[in-house]
């Protein structure tokens, strides 16, 4: 009995490890290749440790050809603005839908459902035309504005607020708090798990988004990380894999580190947002 058990477990563990190795392979080769020089890369050897470490040369290239600091800063600014706006807009709306009686609630729910169905890819054409007419292309406004409303956020917060006890709100009202005060001082602090989950979802989505930035930004100084990497690829003409991998590494690292540091939160957040989306 114990024999078969260990055999079974051994089998499972080796299966998981083999799979893990395959999933990690791109990262391993990324780190390894970022340290190789051109000639070694073109010798097509499978050795993972670079013969003469070219990390400094490759990273210098990556950092000088396209301003990585600028890209990462843009990423932080854009994702930060989007997240703050989304929360500030969605939380009061979700609170009104969950806890207050008003006539438009059903109409609002219909809007939310419609919004859940329509991705940015579907609205991009008219929005692009409008931003073009307003001369707003190549600006933070163009990058952020369409995402200031997150129907998904409203939906998620709504679920969360509905489960909150009404007594909490009644007590606050008896204390003479205004509705805005209730949202700020009672609802938001109690909704922290939902806000964190939503924050992770939102940042991952917009940090990675290429479609919309690609459309509205042609000026490198407004490029977000994915777009900047495309510019870098174009500038490198594709074949300098050492520098490319170094750039890739720099750009992938922030979110990966954030994930590794807060991975429990991450997984919880994705699960929560995923299951309810």
């Amino acid at each position: 009995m114990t024999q078969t058990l260990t055999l079974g477990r051994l089998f499972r563990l080796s299966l998981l490890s083999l799979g893990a190795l395959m999933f990690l392979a791109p990262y391993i080769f990324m780190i390894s290749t970022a340290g190789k020089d051109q000639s070694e890369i073109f010798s097509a050897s499978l050795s993972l440790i670079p013969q003469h470490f070219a990390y400094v040369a490759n990273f210098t290239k990556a950092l000088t050809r396209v301003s990585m600091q600028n890209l990462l800063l843009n990423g932080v600014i854009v994702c930060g603005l989007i997240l703050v706006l989304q929360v500030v807009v969605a939380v009061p709306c979700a609170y009104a839908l969950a806890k207050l009686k008003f006539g438009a609630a059903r109409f609002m729910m219909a809007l939310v459902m419609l919004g859940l169905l329509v991705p940015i890819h579907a609205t991009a054409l008219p929005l692009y035309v409008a931003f073009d007419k307003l001369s707003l292309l190549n600006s933070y406004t163009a990058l952020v504005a369409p995402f200031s409303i997150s129907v998904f956020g409203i939906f998620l917060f709504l679920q969360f607020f509905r489960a909150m006890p009404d007594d909490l709100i009644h007590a606050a009202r008896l204390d003479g708090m205004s509705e805005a005060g209730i949202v700020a001082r009672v609802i938001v602090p109690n909704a922290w798990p939902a806000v964190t989950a939503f924050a992770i979802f939102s940042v991952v989505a917009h940090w990675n988004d290429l479609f919309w930035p690609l459309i509205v930004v042609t000026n490198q100084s407004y490029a977000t990380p994915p777009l900047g990497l495309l510019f870098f690829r174009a500038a490198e003409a594709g074949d300098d894999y050492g520098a490319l991998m170094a750039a890739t590494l720099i750009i992938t690292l922030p979110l990966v580190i954030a994930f590794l540091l807060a991975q429990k939160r991450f997984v919880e957040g994705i699960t929560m947002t995923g299951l309810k989306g």
Partner: protein
Amino acid sequence: MADIALPFSAVDTAGRREARTAWLLASPAILLMLLFIVLPTIAVIVLGFTDFELGYGSFRFVGLENYAELISDRTFRRSLWNTTVYTAIVTPVSIVLGLGIALLIESEPRGRDFFRTVYFLPVASLLVAMATVWQYLFHPGIGPLNTFLALFGIPGPNWLGASSTVIYGLSIIGIWQSVGFNMVLFLAGLTAIPRELYSAAEVDGVKSSIDRFRLVTWPMLGPTTLFVTTISVINSVKVFETVKTLTEGGPNKASEVLLWTIYQEGFIFLRVGYASAMTVVFLAILVVLMVLQYRFLDRRVHYT
């Protein structure tokens, strides 16, 4: 914000005040939804009936001309077909792998956090960046994958460079990227299954792990599986990043996919009217997928 209570009946005033506060709290959201979702959606449908091109001042309504052109547009048909093939590969494989890995992790107490982290890592990584890494892995001459295959005397294909294999190459990247997401959702679904069900099944004589899976796990995972399937299909239909980064629809339109074609027509060739008609088709596909999901969900509720 102290409102002056008018001397109507107290309940009525309170109710009205509540409604007014609600409107006030919801108004930014309503306004932005109209501005950035409802209006553009209507606009895209209307534009689909016009010959609007960016840069030209005037446009006219052409009725169903755009749609008629779509039907005979070989690029668009190719694009629909490629998107279907990509979805038909990525969705089932990433679901089966996601479920398999979740089951393995669930049944193995050792290294649970480690494995979960590793398989989830691609979800948290910048896809455009990792696509670049995959391009290197797939490189026909110097790529590690083909070098590895050559060790066994297998001549590797020109993964992303040949029209016969490009969609498979992209699919591999798509699978690699989405398995972790599915796994996490399945893990959540597995933890939600009450332990008593397994003990009950054992009492009823269910001994083998295959039967346990077939009789308890799989039916209980139903809603999760349905949800994961819908999300996976939708995400596959939306494939864009890897195509833009690696192949730009080529070679020979072999990786022309829906969003890429729309992007190309609308934002490169600036044929906004025609691209809008394509977008409407894209939206219709999403609507059908949603309706299918609800149908399935309904049936589950009624029959089990």
